[in-house]
């Protein structure tokens, strides 16, 4: 069964550093999403992406965040200058006609 994959599974970084989280969506899906989940809290929408551009973004998705689909298979989330409060699980999802399928997540720890 096709699935969304994410790398790395765990990323540790120093405050102020840039990180890139990578996702490989399901191959025939056209809509892509990033979410985050701070430990013990609910899943929060960050951004949706379609046709090589951002469709919607939340207030969390400020100028330090960017997304890119650099080739036909990868979908990346870049955090330019990480802050302590960026520590969270980051989930990528891709969508067929009706349903979003989530990846296993990347645990980002900012020290």
């Amino acid at each position, binding site marked *: 069964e096709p699935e969304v994959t994410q790398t790395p599974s765990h990323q540790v970084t120093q405050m102020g550093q840039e990180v890139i989280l990578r996702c490989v969506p399901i191959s025939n899906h056209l809509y892509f999403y990033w*979410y985050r989940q701070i430990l013990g809290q609910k*899943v929060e929408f960050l951004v*949706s992406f379609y046709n090589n551009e951002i*469709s919607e973004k939340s207030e969390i998705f400020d100028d330090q965040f960017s997304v890119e689909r650099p080739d036909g298979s990868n979908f990346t989330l870049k955090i330019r200058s990480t802050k302590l409060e960026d520590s969270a699980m980051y989930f990528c*999802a891709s969508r067929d006609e009706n*349903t*979003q399928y989530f990846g296993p*997540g990347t645990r980002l720890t900012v020290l």
Partner: protein
Amino acid sequence: LAKTTQPISMDSYEGQEVNITCSHNNIATNDYITWYQQFPSQGPRFIIQGYKTKVTNEVASLFIPADRKSSTLSLPRVSLSDTAVYYCLVGDMDTGGFKTIFGAGTRLFVKA
């Protein structure tokens, strides 16, 4: 986006049927209802989706009354491994920029 309301937590015993109800009074005509399951430190996993009446798959059933203002996820004969958080989401899947809003979900705890 329709706001959803679910119980914060539920307890059950192995082998019982569990029904989790979600209220979505402001559901729009084009909105679908989708349920996800999440284990700690894992991504949400799709369980079932419906628009109206009843939908059944190999893991659950989804009951949606005619007014669509609520829905009930039914898990038959739960096991310990069904202990998880269950989320009800409502949204228009026809639009590309589907902004998914997760509520707090229902934390189901299955006891032996």
